């Protein structure tokens, strides 16, 4: 009993240093240990909370591992068909231009079945935010080859490794959309270390603030892992990601209006 009283002593508002952000629900995340989705969800929820956007936000959930994003964020959400999130977001933002609209999509969703919707929304410069989680694999369906799977990388549908001669090369969607005049801010980040989590949070906050300017699509890629389907421990997966994914998908801003104006000066 004395011990329980001790805990109660500790749980006092003045001792509070960390809590669940109010925009996240108390539902248990279904993600595998070491997965990056939970971290990105949390960052997004914190920013919606800190920027006071909860009542202004409509989120579009993809088909893939993050299909249940709407269970975890306490915001109005729509569940899109596979790859179609940017089409939904286009209409929502045009019908309600004062709102904050984002899509959250994986690599199969955004870079394979939704390539057309992604490129055309970015090309029209639709004023919403796209968060693109790229782990080079189809997670939810059990580890099939994705458009972003690296050359030689094994998956359940490229069991001998991705042969670029017959299976094509990985698609760098972020590089592609950065070339389109319709995009305003394009960046590639990761969430595998505390420093990178902070950088990603900064990038998403920047994207959210840029959205208010209505100057075009903001696109944040997060290079992430998939310990379960890569068949690695979380630590191994992060190391493999650093050594293999980052050289192919280098982190940093591909397009930032601030930097462009500085460069022009």
């Amino acid at each position, binding site marked *: 009993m004395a011990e329980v009283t001790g805990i109660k002593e500790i749980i006092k508002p003045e001792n509070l240093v960390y809590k669940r952000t109010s925009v996240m629900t108390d539902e248990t995340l279904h993600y595998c240990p070491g997965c990056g989705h939970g971290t990105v969800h949390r960052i997004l929820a914190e920013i919606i909370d800190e920027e006071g956007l*909860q*009542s*202004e*936000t*409509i989120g*579009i*959930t993809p088909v893939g591992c993050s*299909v249940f994003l*709407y269970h975890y964020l*306490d*915001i*109005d*959400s*729509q*569940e*899109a*068909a596979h790859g*179609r999130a940017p*089409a*939904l*977001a*286009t*209409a*929502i933002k*045009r*019908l*309600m231009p004062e*709102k*904050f609209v984002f899509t959250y999509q994986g690599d199969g969703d955004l870079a394979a079945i939704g390539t*057309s*919707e992604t490129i*055309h929304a970015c090309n029209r410069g639709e004023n919403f935010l796209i968060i693109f989680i790229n782990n080079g694999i189809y997670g939810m369906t059990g580890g099939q080859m994705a458009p972003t799977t690296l050359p030689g990388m094994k998956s359940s549908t490229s069991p001998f490794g991705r042969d670029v001669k017959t299976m094509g090369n990985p698609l760098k969607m972020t590089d592609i959309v950065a070339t389109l005049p319709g995009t305003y801010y394009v960046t590639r980040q990761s969430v595998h270390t505390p420093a990178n989590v902070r950088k990603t949070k900064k990038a998403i906050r920047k994207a959210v603030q840029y959205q208010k300017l209505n100057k075009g699509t903001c696109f944040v890629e997060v290079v992430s892992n998939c310990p379960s389907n890569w068949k690695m421990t979380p630590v191994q997966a992060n190391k493999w990601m650093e050594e293999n994914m980052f050289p192919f998908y280098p982190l940093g801003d591909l397009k930032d209006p601030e930097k462009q104006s500085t460069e022009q000066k």
Partner: protein
Amino acid sequence: MERELRLMKGNEAVAEAAIRAGADGYFGYPITPQSEILEYLMGANPMETTGMVVLQAESEVAAINMVYGGAGCGKKVMTSSSSPGISLKQEGITYIAGSELPCLIVNVVRGGPGLGTIQPAQSDYFQAVKGGGHGDYHLIVLAPASVQEMADFVDLGFELAFKYRNPVMMLSDGAIGQMMEKVWLSPQKERSKTVPEWATTGKPPTRERNIITSLELNPDNQEKFNQKLVEKYNRIRENEVRFEEFQCSDADYLLVAYGTSARICQKSVQLARGEGLKVGLLRPITLFPFPSKRLSELAEKVSLMISVEMSAGQMVEDVLLSVNGKVPVYHYGRMGGIVPTPDEVVAFLKSKIIGG
């Protein structure tokens, strides 16, 4: 504001009626024979007058998913296309039905299968009435037979879509879409400011979050949802059957036809009656729900029925089910973009009377 009389194509009438109905958004993609709808709306530029969003999408798939997004916000949104494009839209349509969202889809039907022809046909009846996309669902299907009805069914379509939270399809054809007739246009309605309680417009602190989804992994819950849809479709069957009868009261023989075929059959009835044959016409206005009850009643009075369609025989199956063997039911159809002549229909009728 008064009603206004104009001479218009069916496609133009749909576009003008959409603006006047206070639609919030139209999302489309060009395809013959319905491109005038998008062209007219782009030219009318209603963003400047009513604030209506008009957008040319990158594909039919994107257009219907834009409709899905807009409908989820409780907005009055629509799309239009023709047969091959409607096939592409089926993914979005089943999601809209599965998420119980209101919207209007106009199909200006052309002949198929495949790329087929750009001429009028009624060969998408099964697709419109029996499902089209995957899963157990129904659209409310309205079949206009004139330019006037293409205009009127925009307003009616939105009304029914919101009443039942269900997608509505206007199943027209290339003839009605392209032909010009006089049309009375309704006065301009204001765009609705009412936000339905289920709409995703941003979660205020005063309510729980709204989620638009058709995903449910628990089979018990999914079956309950399917059952809820069945009950809704039964309510629609009970309350929304619409049809028109032409000289049915003393008829010995009945033609059943919708859309362009019904216009042809009206003339066939006149020709046949000129020769002393008591023929009537039942024109279904709603194809789902189908006027089964009325057909069953008429089956007690007539000696045969002919379903006249510009198809290989699709609606005839619903006529057969409705009369349940009480009288012989035949199909007369032309395909490939050919519209039957009134004489052909009369000749077919006579052959069946003699044959019977």
